[in-house]
């Protein structure tokens, strides 16, 4: 890959979508629906959240009008790309009774060829984390793999951070540095509106050839870098990850878990919005006559009772044990299991917790209590 970067004018953005669609991609990206910026199929630049931004804090999300016509002037919403790569509900197989035996019917999960438009750096890291979960090692998830292999990724660097963002703490952003086909930085400067485009793959280079693009000047690249650096200074949250695995392992009986359990609704929202949470359950269903059966996979959560149900009851019956399981897996045992943190600092679990439980605050409370007790020694 050459290090050459390009400029696409804001008015030519539609041509990028057109080029991808002509190549047979289903273009999915941000759009305004139900009071939020969600990910859905987009055909036209008009489907994008033009002139909108999101204001976020614990348990609070509001769309606000911007004073410009930015296409990507928001951070992240309630959806993540996992809804496309790891669908919330998926039929795995069907079977039909055949005398005393049964036959498995062929699975017709035709996975679309997606082009993701507007993937943030934290989200790229989340996709890479799910890659490790689903496509690494002995057991490959064929459904995830089929979708993942075909994806074209248009990343968008963040030039502003949200109220619950902490990618800088997790070293996952705000600049996209891996795994994209194209990475854009949106620049609005007075009347000028353009994208600085970095090419990540051959596939990306092919698409760029089909879009009006001119070579970027050093000045353009510098402006883009400055805007991204500014976003890095705006993080709404911070998480000190120093020795975090051992910090949490040392504090499995910390009173803070009891305290957070009084607030936690164990509603599972944090796990559903998390771009790395991958747990599922399977439901076996039959038809009324008992001649056909189907196995359906659905997103599940460690916050449900059924999740840890074994003969005799649920292993994690208390809200305390369920919250502790989630947080310590995300930030500590994930490292043992997959070699990285399970958290990318996107802030979704903070924003979309109905009662504003804040993962960074919970870790801070535990860390500070240790520091206080050390001082007391």
């Amino acid at each position, binding site marked *: 890959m050459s290090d050459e970067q390009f400029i696409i004018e804001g008015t030519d953005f539609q041509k990028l979508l057109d080029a991808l669609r002509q190549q047979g991609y289903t273009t999915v990206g941000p759009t305004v*629906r*139900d*009071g*939020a910026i*969600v990910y859905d199929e987009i055909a036209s630049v008009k489907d994008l959240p033009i002139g909108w931004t999101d204001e976020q804090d614990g*348990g*609070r*999300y*509001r*769309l606000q009008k911007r004073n410009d016509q930015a296409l990507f002037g928001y951070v992240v*919403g*309630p*959806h993540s790309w996992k*809804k496309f790569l790891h669908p*919330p*509900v998926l039929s795995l197989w069907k079977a039909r009774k055949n005398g005393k035996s049964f036959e498995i019917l062929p699975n017709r999960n035709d996975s679309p060829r997606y082009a993701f438009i507007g993937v943030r750096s934290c989200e790229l890291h989340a996709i890479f984390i799910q890659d490790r979960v689903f496509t690494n090692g002995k057991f490959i998830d064929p459904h995830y793999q089929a979708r993942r292999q075909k994806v074209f990724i248009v990343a968008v660097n963040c030039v502003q951070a949200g109220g619950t963002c902490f990618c800088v703490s997790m070293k996952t952003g705000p600049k996209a540095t891996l795994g994209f086909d194209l990475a854009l930085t949106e620049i609005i400067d007075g009347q000028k509106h353009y994208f600085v485009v970095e090419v990540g793959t051959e596939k990306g280079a092919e698409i760029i050839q089909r879009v009006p693009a001119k070579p970027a000047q050093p000045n353009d690249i510098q402006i883009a870098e400055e805007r991204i650096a500014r976003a890095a200074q705006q993080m709404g949250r911070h998480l000190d990850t120093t020795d975090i695995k051992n910090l949490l392992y040392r504090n499995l009986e910390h009173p803070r878990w009891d305290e957070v359990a*009084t*607030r*936690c*609704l*164990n*509603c*599972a*929202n944090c796990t*559903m*919005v998390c771009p790395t949470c991958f747990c599922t359950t399977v*439901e*076996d*269903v*039959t*038809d*009324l*006559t*008992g001649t056909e059966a189907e196995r359906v996979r*659905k*997103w599940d*959560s460690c*916050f*449900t*009772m*059924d999740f840890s149900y074994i003969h005799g009851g649920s292993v994690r*019956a208390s*809200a305390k044990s369920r919250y502790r399981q989630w947080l310590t897996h995300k930030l500590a045992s994930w490292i043992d299991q997959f070699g990285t943190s399970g958290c990318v600092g996107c802030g979704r679990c903070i*924003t*979309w917790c*109905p*009662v*504003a439980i804040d993962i960074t605050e919970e870790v801070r409370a535990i860390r500070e209590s240790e520091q206080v007790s050390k001082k007391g020694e």
Partner: protein
Amino acid sequence: MPKAKRPKIAVWKFASCDGCQLSLLDCEDELLAVAGAVDIAYFLEASRAVVKGPYDISLVEGSITTPHDAERIQEVRRVSTFLITIGACATAGGIQALRNFKDVKEFISIVYAKPEYISTLDKSTPIADHVKVDFELRGCPVNKYQLIEVINAFLNRRKPNVPTYSVCVECKRRGTPCVMVARGTPCLGPVTQAGCGAICPAYHRGCYGCFGPKETPNTVSLSAWWRKLGVNDHDLVRAFRGFNAYAEPFRKESERYEQR
């Protein structure tokens, strides 16, 4: 399947609006399959033809509100192998359980010209308070797909796929942005059992709690957040006193705010 072997099913009504048993008739596409798989032996809403008991499956709608019904449910239990209660009345006492928070004799004296003709109990109670129940299907009304799933599971001798987690899980699976977070709309979803398919939030309304309390509901935390959203004590009491007012977690929460 030979006709003689088809399981006999009965549908019983107690104090209720009939909406849940109508869900069975509302099954439309699936109704023929249901009628083919079972022998609908007693279902007055659908047919006057009555086949005598005993019955393999009894679906019971409604709550117990009169001394007569308190006796009748014992008879239903006696003639039923499996007894499945359907809907908020049968599983929690229903909207008529609002009487449980007041003196029912006062109502009778105000409402009826001849109160002495009225024979009623002090409280409206769920079926499980009176007889052993094999499965409780929640909802006001029940979800027809869940109803078929339960019948289906009993016919095929498997566990029904009826999760007890929150409505939030259904909202998230269908991609509905949280109305409480994105709009500040008070919603009972985080303490309410899934099953409806998360209908109300998809139409920008908060959940009304039709399916009753979820497993391990944290009503105290949710109420505290509603107060921050600007909901007053009086409205909090009313929110928890809906169709599942007498389900214990909702009852306790409404009483906590009523007593303040």
